[in-house]
């Protein structure tokens, strides 16, 4: 992959280190243990196989085939089925084999699930797990970051953790949430980062951003895999004091944290791996341009994927994807502004 995600944090001293993928698997297992209404469904999630990324491996043996349900290739249908299950009080965790295939289930998400409670009070407490993001040479249909479609749609919640601990804590919160939550997992982080994850129950509230590091000169607002790119880029510019805000939840957005971070430095970079054009970063930048205008000391720089499909070949994908160098340059530009 194009970036090095050898992420390390202070907590690494602690004994209990899990990968991002292990943290997700742990959250699912613990919630299934706790609540018999929690179940998993999707393509290849069941049996001894446990899904394309093996996130659900072992669950079928442990909780039975009824609660770890293999589906045919029918995203629209099985997500619609999850809508009905959720209306009856089950809490299905729907696995999209890749986030790229979430578009196949679109109506069941953006038309039914997102509107049922607003229209007639029907609760749809499911979670869709969407393995997203690229940098790992998977081509246009296994590398997408479609979060903007869903943030734009009223009635959904959208979460995108960047660390194993947040992955466990936010997935737990998403499963317990009474609304449809789309949980974007950053594939490139699955096995590339390992850090401390609290044992037992661990809940991270949906809707709260986290300050990854404090700083006075420039603020980077980001989420998912790009949090690590931001941190590494900041490290390459030691003479600039960089503040990094990890949004963690995209909807509902922690606007207070965003505005506070923007005001703190007056200089802001908004960064994500998704296509930049009308991406979620545009919302963040527009929010700041409207509500923190008087505090701005420089242009709001947006960095995101190019306005092309995600190409497969390394030189093209690296050019497509926000790089450490691009972010470092933006930091310098703003610092010098």
């Amino acid at each position, binding site marked *: 992959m194009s970036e090095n995600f050898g992420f390390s944090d202070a907590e690494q001293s602690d004994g209990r280190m899990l990968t991002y993928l292990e943290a997700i698997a742990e959250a699912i297992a613990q919630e299934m243990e706790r609540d018999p209404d929690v179940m998993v469904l999707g393509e290849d999630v069941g049996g001894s196989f446990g899904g394309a990324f093996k996130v659900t491996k072992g669950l079928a043996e442990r909780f039975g085939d009824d609660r770890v349900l293999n589906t045919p290739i029918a995203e629209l249908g099985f997500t619609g089925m999850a809508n*009905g299950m959720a209306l009856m009080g089950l809490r299905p965790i729907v696995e999209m084999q890749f986030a790229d295939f979430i578009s196949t289930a679109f109506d069941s998400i953006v038309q*039914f699930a997102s509107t*049922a409670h607003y229209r007639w009070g029907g609760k749809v407490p499911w979670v869709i797990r969407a393995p997203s993001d690229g940098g790992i040479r998977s081509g246009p249909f296994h590398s997408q970051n479609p979060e903007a479609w869903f943030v734009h749609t009223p009635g959904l919640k959208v979460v995108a953790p960047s660390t194993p601990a947040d992955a466990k804590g936010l997935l737990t919160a998403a499963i317990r949430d009474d609304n449809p939550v789309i949980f974007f997992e950053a594939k490139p982080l699955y096995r590339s980062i390992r850090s401390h994850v609290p044992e037992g129950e661990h809940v991270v509230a949906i809707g709260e951003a986290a300050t990854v590091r404090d700083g006075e000169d420039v603020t980077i607002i980001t989420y998912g895999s790009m949090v690590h790119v931001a941190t590494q880029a900041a490290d390459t510019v030691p003479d600039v004091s960089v503040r990094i805000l990890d949004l963690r939840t995209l909807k509902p957005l922690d606007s207070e944290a965003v505005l506070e971070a923007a005001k703190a430095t007056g200089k802001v970079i908004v960064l994500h791996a998704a296509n930049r054009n009308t991406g979620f970063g545009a919302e963040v930048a527009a929010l700041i341009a409207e509500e923190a205008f008087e505090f701005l000391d420089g242009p709001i720089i947006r960095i995101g994927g190019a306005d092309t499909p995600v190409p497969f070949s390394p030189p093209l994908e690296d050019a497509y994807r926000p790089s450490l160098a691009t972010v470092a340059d933006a930091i310098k530009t703003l610092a010098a502004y």
Partner: protein
Amino acid sequence: MEPLTTERRIEAYAWMSLTRTFDDAMVAMWKQGRGLGGAFSQRGHEAISVAAGMALGPDDVVAPMHRDLGTYLVRGMTPERIFGNLLGRATGPTRGRDANLHGIGDLDLGIIGFISHIPQALPTTLGVAMAFKLRHERRVALTTVGDGGFTSGGTHETLNMASLYRAPFVLIVEDNKYAYSTPLEQQMRSARFAEKAAAYDIASAKVDGNDFDAMYAAVSVGVDRAREGGGPTVIEADTMRMLGHAIHDGAEYVPEEMLAAWKRRDPVAAMRNRLLDEGAITDEELDVIDQTAHGKIQAAIATAEAAPLPDPSTLHDGVYA
């Protein structure tokens, strides 16, 4: 299956009469400009929708479509509330949020609110059925689809999974010969829905959708099968959409003779005459039933028209649970 006593069949007539009376009143109101937005007449579908409502048990769940007014009524959704929805009142089940019969769900009545997007009611209802199955509850989920909706991809995905999982799921195909302006022969080459169901290994029946007794029997067989763990059923109901797609649609594209022929098979009149022929009830008693229906509907309209519109300050209420 609950035996179809004479009392039950008279009750059925009463529901069909209430449904027809509601429909006539709604159409009249909208033509007079007293309506809001669009409205779908279900005229001709009374036998299907009332049979579906009556054949289900109290704990079963149903996701009716835009022409299943009778099902809503039988399940206990009052005419007041439905007219409230039609008129965008705060007292409707969607509190002014959704239009016409869209979204008038109420889980306390075992009703799922539907959305326009065809065929979303199908996978949703399958999910309800699966919840019953996974919890080992002896409950059934039923929904309906039009001839038009049958050609939509989600219908195929739902039938395949319903069969695969042997879900307690019943689907009524309302073959009313048109999808908006498009006749059956421009929708599909084979309209043999029962045969289509067989290709999924799903049990099926083809029924005269304008014959309440036949519909009730067929739906009951499907519901019982589902309840006993026998898996899904598809019921092909042969019927006709008598008043066009929606209130604004003159349906000039429907041949006169066709409508005339179907008029002779009117489901409400048929039920009425059958009960009379059997001597199960007198003309006078039937008139009382019709007058009662008329009174209920007029009262419902008055109540709904008098009800308040939603307060704009409630715009954001309920986006999230």
